[in-house]
């Protein structure tokens, strides 16, 4: 990465709050600049020796506010207890060096930023060393950085970073800073450091989007149409004392408090323009359309390896099975909200968002202002899960502020949030696969029919009708297969679909690992032994073996208990999950144990990796067991948590997580990795327990808990 720094590297110093100095270092690479991307990170060192390091990633629970600064701190050589972290503001200078976007998703931040952040840390450290050399009037070679200070090696004199920051900020930025650390020698990277954002999440001081308060702001709520895709025809009545704004796809209604606005939104009367056919859409009509496509096509090939027809013809035994998955809501704990303040010359936005740069584009489009007139303030997200990439709630707040001539704090009620989601797409997937007498897979023919997210969000990335996100986890498989053919078709419907934590993998890994389990049964083999024999990918095999060891696969489970296992690869990481369960009633089970072994390459904070896998498993548990948005009358039949089950503490057994490092493996993502293999591990365990193969989600084999009221 040093060559990036050597191209063009500049420094700006600005007095920062608290009397400290902000050492703003930015550099850009001509290749990245040509692609429209610049890299920028700030380090602020205060006279009290506290070091504030910003993260360009948006925090939604995954720990990025801590893990990005942790990488800089490695090279900067500072005591982690002195580090404060914060979110970088939005702007083109913060674009991810790989994705060229200031969005947080795809488990991408650490993977993309790891080397640039080490370089930023090294450059900052060298400037502090140069400042010390200048202060003492000695050569730089006589000075050495230690934790938070520089030592004069001839005299043992020291100057702290806090004392040096002011001078350092006036010095030229080194053109090729030396990154001192390397894999195997990291001091801070790989340590389970405490997340600096956690204390504020225990005392109520953390500010989420919904907590933003701006002088003069008006509380507001939203009223969406009763049928997907409808638009406002006319607002026919607004409650006394409230104001309503037509924002096209909905009506924004004000109130004295958010609760008052919720009430006013409910009683506002609106006539809607409903697109023809939308009100008849239902889960069953969409499933019927998808099933017709599954049977007759047309489809687009996603992957072709060898001759799958010949492979099937040569097979000793075959399976030909269909799996069905429903639409699933995000249900972030923090409902959608946005605070916007639009004037003739400025626009400020405070929103829990995964897509800060998309917000900027939205604001430009809706206000006609220039980027320089628009400020996107970073705030915490109470969960994101992919939903907070979307621009609907951002647009609504901007339009309402513009119309009302005041700052607007828009909050969706939980009911509006549930019923106006961009759901995880439903899917119908067939697998026709064959094995030879030894169990080896001779042919794998997988067809995926699912509404396309990419066709709506990024149509330019869809070539020949192939949504690569929809087939993620169904192609480039870690198994030995004599032949493979995977194809895909979009099934259009009025139901909005969007990215949902682990996206295609969350659909396709259920199909893959259920069908592999079916092949194991067909071959008369143990599900673990069968996978171990058929996997061709060493890292996949590594996590599989590790999880088998964790759960004690070689020892039979207790009488009445059974186990299931599944492995998944995605986001540059590997995970295997093993689940043990026992019958609770004739139709339900109690899950007694979950083990997960993960290989995500270099680990920045192992405690965060463990937390993300624990949380991912819980999220996978919820969606596999109960995740479903029934559609009828062209609308989602979901309103609130009293009729939508999610995992609660009483449902969740202990989860053991083991990090399995493959030496030298590239850095993988972690935020989404825990989710996909949970559903097939559950279904496979249920098969082992009952002999019954469940090919549809949700599994509904655990009795949910809805709270204590």
């Amino acid at each position: 990465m040093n060559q990036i720094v050597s191209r063009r590297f500049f420094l700006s110093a600005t007095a920062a709050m608290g009397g400290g100095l902000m050492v703003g270092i930015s550099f850009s690479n001509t290749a990245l600049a040509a692609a429209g991307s610049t890299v920028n990170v700030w380090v602020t060192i205060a006279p009290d020796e506290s070091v504030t390091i910003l993260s360009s990633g948006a925090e939604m629970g995954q720990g990025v506010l801590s893990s990005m600064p942790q990488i800089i701190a490695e090279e900067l050589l500072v005591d982690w207890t002195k580090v404060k972290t914060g979110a970088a503001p939005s702007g083109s200078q913060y674009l991810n060096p790989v994705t060229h976007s200031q969005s947080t998703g795809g488990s991408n931040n650490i993977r993309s930023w790891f080397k640039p952040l080490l370089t930023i840390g090294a450059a900052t450290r060298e400037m502090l060393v140069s400042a010390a050399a200048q202060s003492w009037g000695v050569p730089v070679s006589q000075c050495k950085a230690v934790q938070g200070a520089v030592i004069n090696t001839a005299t043992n004199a020291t100057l702290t970073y806090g004392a040096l920051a002011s001078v350092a900020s006036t010095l030229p930025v080194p053109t090729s800073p030396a990154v001192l650390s390397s894999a195997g020698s990291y001091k801070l990277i790989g340590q389970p450091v405490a997340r600096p954002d956690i204390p504020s999440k225990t005392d109520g001081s953390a500010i989420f989007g919904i907590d933003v308060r701006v002088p003069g702001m008006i509380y507001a709520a939203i009223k969406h149409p009763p049928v997907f895709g409808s638009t406002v025809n006319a607002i026919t009545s607004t409650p006394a004392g409230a104001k309503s704004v037509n924002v096209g796809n909905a009506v924004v209604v004000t109130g004295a408090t958010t609760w008052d606005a919720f009430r006013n939104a409910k009683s506002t009367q609106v006539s809607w323009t409903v697109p023809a056919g939308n009100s008849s859409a239902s889960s069953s009509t969409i499933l019927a359309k998808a099933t017709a496509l599954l049977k007759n096509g047309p489809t687009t090939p996603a992957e072709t390896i060898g001759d799958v027809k010949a492979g099937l013809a040569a097979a000793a035994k075959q399976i030909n099975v269909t799996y069905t998955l429903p639409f699933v809501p995000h249900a972030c704990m923090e409902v959608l909200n946005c605070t916007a303040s639009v004037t003739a010359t400025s626009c400020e936005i405070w929103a829990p968002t995964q897509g800060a740069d998309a917000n900027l584009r939205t604001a430009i489009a809706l206000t006609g202002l220039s980027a320089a007139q628009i400020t996107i303030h970073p705030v915490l997200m109470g969960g994101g899960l992919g939903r907070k990439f979307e621009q609907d709630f951002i647009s609504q707040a901007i339009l309402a502020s513009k119309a009302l001539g005041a700052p607007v704090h828009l909050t969706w009620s939980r009911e509006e949030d549930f019923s106006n989601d961009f759901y995880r797409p439903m899917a119908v997937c067939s697998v026709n696969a064959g094995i030879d007498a030894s169990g080896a897979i001779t042919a794998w023919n997988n067809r995926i029919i699912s509404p396309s997210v990419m066709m709506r969000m990024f149509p330019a990335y869809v070539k020949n009708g192939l949504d690569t996100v929809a087939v993620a986890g169904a192609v480039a498989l870690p198994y030995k297969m004599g032949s493979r053919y995977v194809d895909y078709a979009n099934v259009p419907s009025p139901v909005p679909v969007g990215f949902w934590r682990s996206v295609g993998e969350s659909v396709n890994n259920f199909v893959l690992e259920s069908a592999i389990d079916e092949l194991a049964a067909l071959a008369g083999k143990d599900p673990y032994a069968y996978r171990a024999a058929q996997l061709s990918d060493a890292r996949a095999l590594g996590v599989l073996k590790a999880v088998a060891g964790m759960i004690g696969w070689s020892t039979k489970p207790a009488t009445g208990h059974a186990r299931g296992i599944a492995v998944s690869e995605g986001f540059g990481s590997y995970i295997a999950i093993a689940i043990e369960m026992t019958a609770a009633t004739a139709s339900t089970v109690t899950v007694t144990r979950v083990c997960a072994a993960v290989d995500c390459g270099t680990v920045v904070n192992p405690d965060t990796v463990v937390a993300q896998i624990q949380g991912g498993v819980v999220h996978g548990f919820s969606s596999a067991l109960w995740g479903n948005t029934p559609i009828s009358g062209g609308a989602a039949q979901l309103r609130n948590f009293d009729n939508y089950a999610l995992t609660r503490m009483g449902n969740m057994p202990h989860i053991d997580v083991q990090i399995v490092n493959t030496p030298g493996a590239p850095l993988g993502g972690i935020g989404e990795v825990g989710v996909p293999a949970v559903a097939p591990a559950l279904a496979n365990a249920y098969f082992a327990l009952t002999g019954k193969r469940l090919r549809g989600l949700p599994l509904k084999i655990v009795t949910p808990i809805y709270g204590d009221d």
Partner: protein
Amino acid sequence: MATQAVTLTVNGTKHTVNVDPSTPLLWVLRDALGLTGTKYGCGIEACGACTVLVGGGAEKSCEMSVQDASGQNITTIEGLAATPMHKVQLAWIAEQVPQCGYCQSGMILKAVELLQQTKTPTDAQISAAMSNLCVCGTYQRVRAAIHRAAAM
């Protein structure tokens, strides 16, 4: 809706607010008093994000009217966080419980009530008491933090 003056005691301080008296306590705390540590999750007492202590007991503030809360001592997460922090908060930090953190104010206050009622709760007692929803899935660490706080 007609507003009226309602007096309530929050974190030891008396406040008088002019609101519709049927306004839920949650929204008076958040929108009238600026105490945003208490969170909205569902509005129907189904998730626990809005849990506060009313007269020492954990209550969901999203469906309790401010009028009903007016005579009682209310403690929100901001009031629990004195110096030093409450042992439940310290245990939460030690176990690195929060991910997104949104549900944690309610979780913590519910745990405070549990430990007031049961000094050393068992796993089963924790599961029974802690029905608060956490979509991040921090349950295992919540459990560990409650055990840790019980031992403090």
